[in-house]
């Protein structure tokens, strides 16, 4: 069963002084099955971020529908949206988005506190996640005291602790060094093994090569997609590279 279904998504921006219309998304359709690990790739300006914002219900499409677990996002009221997002979606951002005023532990608790969970339950949920992510020793530290990779792992823990149906990752390796990036990507793979659905936007070929499927977006449309299938990671890496070359040199749909 599809956990996420996107049909004919359009998004048009009007520039501030009227007149010029910019089409960020022309016609995007795809679906994500439960337990899948999907990477979305594309150049800067291809509409990746717009797409993710719409999927995450942070922005509204001009046309088309997004069904999450069978529910149309457009039907959810503005006031219920924050709660819906909190209960069903987990987010990992390029710049971590941890609050400086909280220790890592409190940052991870934040969505649960907002959902009104009590301390004992929060603590029970945190333990296995912190262990899996290897941040048990860091929980009492503050964001300014830890490295980027550690911050990102705390952000992943924050995304996981609500047991979301879907995790959205927006360039999660963008601000990390290569070692931390590798660790994080391995972590994502491990989480995905545990049946966690992940949608990741990236333009790192390496990051995308960890996914089970890669979608390419160009000029506001899904241009191509590659399944990992029986390929090894190296083979997938090569295929992604080739596709990107094709994309940038202006080839038509393969």
């Amino acid at each position, binding site marked *: 069963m599809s956990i996420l279904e996107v049909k004919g998504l359009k998004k048009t921006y009007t520039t501030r002084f009227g007149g010029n219309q910019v089409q960020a998304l022309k016609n995007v359709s795809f679906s994500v099955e439960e337990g899948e690990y999907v990477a979305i790739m594309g150049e800067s300006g291809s509409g990746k971020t717009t797409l993710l914002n719409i999927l995450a219900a*942070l922005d509204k499409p001009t046309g088309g529908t997004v069904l999450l677990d069978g529910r149309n996002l457009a039907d959810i009221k503005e*006031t219920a*949206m*924050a*709660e819906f*997002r*909190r209960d069903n979606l987990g*987010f990992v*951002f390029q710049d971590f*988005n*941890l*609050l*400086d*005023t*909280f*220790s890592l532990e*409190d940052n991870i*608790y*934040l*969505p649960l*506190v*907002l959902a*009104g969970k*009590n*301390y004992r339950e*929060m603590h029970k949920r945190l333990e296995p996640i912190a262990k899996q992510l290897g941040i048990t020793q860091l929980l009492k530290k*503050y*964001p*300014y005291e830890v490295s980027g990779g550690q911050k990102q792992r705390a952000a992943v823990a*924050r995304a996981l602790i609500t047991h979301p149906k879907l995790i959205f990752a927006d360039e999660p390796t963008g601000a990390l060094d290569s070692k931390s990036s590798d660790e994080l990507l391995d972590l994502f793979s491990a989480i995905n093994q545990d049946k966690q659905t992940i949608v990741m936007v990236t333009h790192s070929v390496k990051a995308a090569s960890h996914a089970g499927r890669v979608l390419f977006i160009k000029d506001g449309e899904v241009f191509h997609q590659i399944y990992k299938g029986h390929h090894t990671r190296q083979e997938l890496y090569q295929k992604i590279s080739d596709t990107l070359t094709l994309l940038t040199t202006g080839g038509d749909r393969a």
Partner: protein
Amino acid sequence: MRKSFYPKMAWSGISHNRKLYIPYFFTCIAMVMMFYIIDALSVSSVLVRIRGGETMQGMLNFGKWIIGLFTLIFLFYTNSFLNKRRSREYGLYNVLGMDKRNLAHIHFWGTAIIAGISLVAGLIFGIVFSKLAELWMVNILNGQTDFKLRIEGSAIRETILVFLVIFILILLSALRKMTMASPMELLRSEHTGEKPPKGNWLLALVGVVVLAIAYGLAVTIEDPVVALAWFFAAVILVIVATYMLFIAGSVTLCRILQKNKGFYYRKQHFISIASMSYRMKRNGAGLASICVLSTMVLVMLSSTICLYAGVESIMRERYPRDLSYEVHVSAPKYLNEESEANWRQLMEETLHESHLTASDVLEYTSAFFYGKLEGQNFRMKDELMDMETNESTAFDVDEVYVAPLGVYNRVTGEKETLDAGEALVAVYGGSYENNTDTLSIHNDIHFNVKKVISNFKAIHMDGAVSTKVYYIFVPDFDEVAEKLAQYNMAQYTTENMENVYFKCYYGCNLDGSDDAQMAAEGILNNKFAALNASQQEGIDYVSYESYAFNKESFYGTFGGLLVLGILLGIVFVFAAILIMYYKQVTEGYEDQSGFVVMQKVGMTKKDIRQSINSQILIVFFAPLLLAGLHLLFAFPMISKLLLLFGLNRTQFLAMVALGCYLMFAVCYIIVYKMTSGVYYRIVSVNNK
């Protein structure tokens, strides 16, 4: 071209940061204006000519330097804030190839522009409004002036000089900071990782204890003179405690709340408490300053308004009759019908010559000494002082009058009779606590107390109202007085060292103008001088008091205090507003990113707004509430101090203080409304 480069850069820097600089300009202009006004008034030739004006000018001269000092501190504070906000810009210039010397030039021109504009505008407004202030002061002093606009050259020179020094000091400190920072530090100075605030338990505890001590002092001190001595100590303790509480106490409180997991991990508390501890760490000093300033404004305004409004009653306490004389004689035998009639005659002649009519005549003879009631015995002042090496105890001695019973019957209209050895005790400003049947003076002169009257008001004699006054009315005054005189003689050989004074008071109210009354005092003075020259035996000295004469110097003093109170109040309110404004702006920029994150992790805009609202409310109104508490505890002390000035109207003071507080709160709320709008606008910029 090259020459105008730096001024242009400086000007564009200022105009691009309008939001920050406009309030700063206003403040600088206001400070210059206030300084000029006060300075101009303190040298104004109009005021000198009015009676009481000189007293007032002395006070203004003092106030001028308070404002100067305050301006220095305050502009330093706001300027460091401005530079911090702009350091990114300077860092960028530095990276783009300007060296520190170029930046120093920009700094210099920036300061020069600000100094120039605020001095010119401030002086113009100052000259215009100083006329208004002059009219107001003249009105307070009941004097007269014309409507000519006066410009005080010396005040202008002094204002320019003082503010140039202030601006130069500010420039130097900004340059010093700049030369020590590297470009990257400049670029990042706004976003350096901040350590989580640690609650300083010890400092918080000390703050609580110090505040408790200060409050304890304010509440427990009974004696006005002691209150005066301790007032400034209490003020300093309160200021210290306020800073400690806001800086350390608030963070510690947040930490304690965070330890309580059941309380902390709740939607309503979680974010508020965590960000409050940061907010308090950053703003503790600013909030404490607001609190201290507010308290000062409130105390100053309520006490000066009270004093000014109470001038009449203070005057009447001090000068119960319009015109009076008091003849001090060296021995009781000189207080006799004949000489008293002689003196009375002089007064009557005087009034006749001045075409004045007397009413409410009060005339009495008495023996007077300073003493302390211990058990059923009055000890005299000198006797008390001997015991303690000529020091102390002078604080809490009371005044004791021994007078003929006839005086009592005359002023009250009653017909009391006493047998020899009996006495009637009346107490002004209190009650006869010991309530004994017998009473003695120096364990030597004994009375049977027949009747006691507390809070006796029919006579109040001149002198300090702050102490209690005992009246002992006796049927055989001459005998008692003689005994007191013998005691005097026995104790001291020279008459100057006497303990007991014998005197005759005559006072009356008059119907003429103030000028006529003052003239009458002069005539009376001459007549007594003539009498003394023709040597009437036994007169030590004579004192005269004219209500009209003293009224003007009182108005000068209290009017001066009021003017100073109001002017300083205005300055402090300005300062408080600016601090609040900058606080909101800084916090807005600091909270911007957090705001975005919170939305991404699933907080609704409403949640965020609520959380921020509650934080701002606490941060904003904590100083106001604490200032209210300070005022409440300062109240007993202020009322004691006013008692020193002769003002005994606690209820009135309470009403004035409450009124001032409410008015201040209204101003505060208006400022809050204005500045919180700025905050929300900054916070919601990135938030579509």
